[in-house]
């Protein structure tokens, strides 16, 4: 019963977001409140299982709404000239070095730097008295999370040179935690 009500709450929340979208802020706020309340209730009852189920319910409701939007969307015959938002790289030799540097800084160096951070976190946690299961999993979770964050940060910098500092800081933080 709680599960059914919770999932219904998530579906209703998405529906409110759609109904209030661009028009009624009150309905949008109601949608958010309903969604948070439903997710909180399912989480309180079943922990992470409840939260994941609530989120899946919300996404499924959104998928239905999007399918409806696709079905009723008006046909546009006139070619729409979208604003150019991506500068496509020209494949010239001088660009290759920059691309290679970007790859090296984001992939192998980024990986190594975040692995250092993860191992540093594991050492610090062990030293702080964490049980081995927790400190080990901390390291194993930190690495992919930190790598994703570092790569995101590096890829929005202006130049490959600016990618060095975040990776170096990451490795340095790991080294400090290690010591």
């Amino acid at each position, binding site marked *: 019963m709680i599960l059914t009500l919770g999932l219904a709450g998530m579906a209703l929340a998405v529906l409110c977001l759609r109904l209030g979208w661009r028009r009624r802020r009150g309905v949008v706020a109601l949608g958010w409140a309903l969604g948070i309340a439903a997710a909180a209730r399912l989480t309180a009852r079943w922990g992470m299982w409840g939260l994941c189920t609530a989120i899946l319910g919300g996404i499924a409701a959104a998928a239905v709404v999007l399918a409806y939007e696709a079905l009723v969307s008006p*046909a546009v015959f006139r070619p729409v000239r*979208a604003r150019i938002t991506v500068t*496509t790289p020209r494949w010239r030799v001088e660009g290759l070095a920059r691309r290679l540097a970007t790859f090296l800084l984001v992939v192998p160096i980024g990986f190594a730097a975040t*692995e250092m951070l993860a191992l540093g976190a594991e050492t610090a946690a062990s030293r702080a008295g964490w049980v081995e299961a927790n400190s080990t999993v901390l390291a194993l979770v930190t690495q992919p999370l930190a790598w994703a964050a570092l790569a995101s940060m590096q890829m929005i910098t202006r130049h490959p040179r600016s990618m060095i500092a975040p990776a170096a800081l990451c490795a340095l933080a790991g080294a400090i935690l290690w010591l």
Partner: protein
Amino acid sequence: MTRTDRDAPTLVQRALKGHAAIGLLVGALMYLVVLSGTLVVIGPRWDRWEQPRAPEMHHIAPAAVQHAVAVAGGAHPATIMVTLPDDELPRTIVTAGKRPYFLDASGNRAQVVAHPWADFLLALHIYLNLPATLGLVVVGALGSMLSALIVTGVIAHPRLFRDAFRLRARANRQLAQADWHNRLGIWTLPFGLAVALTGAFLGLAVVGATLIAKGHHGGDVAQVYAPIFGDQVAPGGGPAKIADVAAALTMMQARFPDVTPSYVSIAGAGRQEQRIEIIADVPHRLIYGESYRFDAAGHYLGKVGLSDGAVGQQVAASMYRLHFGSFGGLAVELAYVLFGLCLLVVTGTGMSLWLHKRRRRGEPSVRLEAFWTIIVWGAPLLIVIDYWIVVAWPTASATWWFWSLLAALVIVLMIWPHFAKPSAGRRVLGASILVTGVAHAALMRPSPASFALDLVIALTGIIILVAPGLLAARRTITRAA
């Protein structure tokens, strides 16, 4: 403001550029991993579908399991493992050597497990068919890069809420693709992040664990995992009667009635120090199960603590089910398949948009466009063809055929890129899926569950064939009105 400041790209532009660069780097491999991942969400159902005539049961008696392990123990394997039937895979499988085999409901040996195509799909998703450790690391790295794609994609989209439901599906191709890419990407963001990060964890853990093992345990990785999943020491001692699995299973039912045993293993089978381990599903939890341990006589020794031990144990044990969507029965599986398809569309349209933009700028990449057509339409088509290859030629390697045909297709269409037509690829794929569903139902005498899957397969083929046509027809009607 100086000219340099004015010309400098904004945060949104930089995020878009970074998003495109990561997509270009990992797009093709990501597409293969997402495609195979979407399929393996219902992996056990593919096992049943590929090998339809194996004995099925919803429950097996402890005495039948005991009979099976006693027979298996005769060959003196180091470990005997028994996968117990459940709703998803109502089959009992014994692994006590190189070739796992099925049991009938009485615990007698039935045919050997043989679903090479389903195994290939799983290996494609987990390892990209590479050697195990390398494959895990590459796929794990793709998980982290997918997370970075999601983060840069969100930063690049300042109108996140304003465009939340804007979907111009009938606009021109580029605009429609951009809207599908952005809307599906945003609404499936929690799902995308969950599968990306859990996938990265599952893949990259091997590196972290190896480094921790070198630092603290003299290189013994088993010691790193022992505090999390329990120690896996191989018991020794002289020969002894095979462990009493029936007693352990009976005790489980009496002492832990709320959990459902899914897996039994005997480490050191037929040795004096042999030990029984039973993994049981805990309802309404993300963990893959709790591990209960028994001695050879079936006396309860204790549990590992995956369900209520250290937070680290519970987190690590939750990764697998959260990644594969096996924590809530068929409903969650179907949701994962649907959202996996959404992620596939996001991946496919991402590269297509980049290629469109190049073309519009007068810099078409004809060969890259052909390559992307092969990946988007050719890879799923080859997965379908692969199934029929292993049906016609059971000893053929599904992995070898898939990658060889993909490489051949890439080479041919890179030489003659004008033959790579997305619309033709879509039609051939749709037709091949439709034929596969119908032919499997007609030729393989499937069980009702597999027949239902045949119907879904045939319907999927029809949708791929007719959906764009329906959109075009509606467009014509709208124009006439």
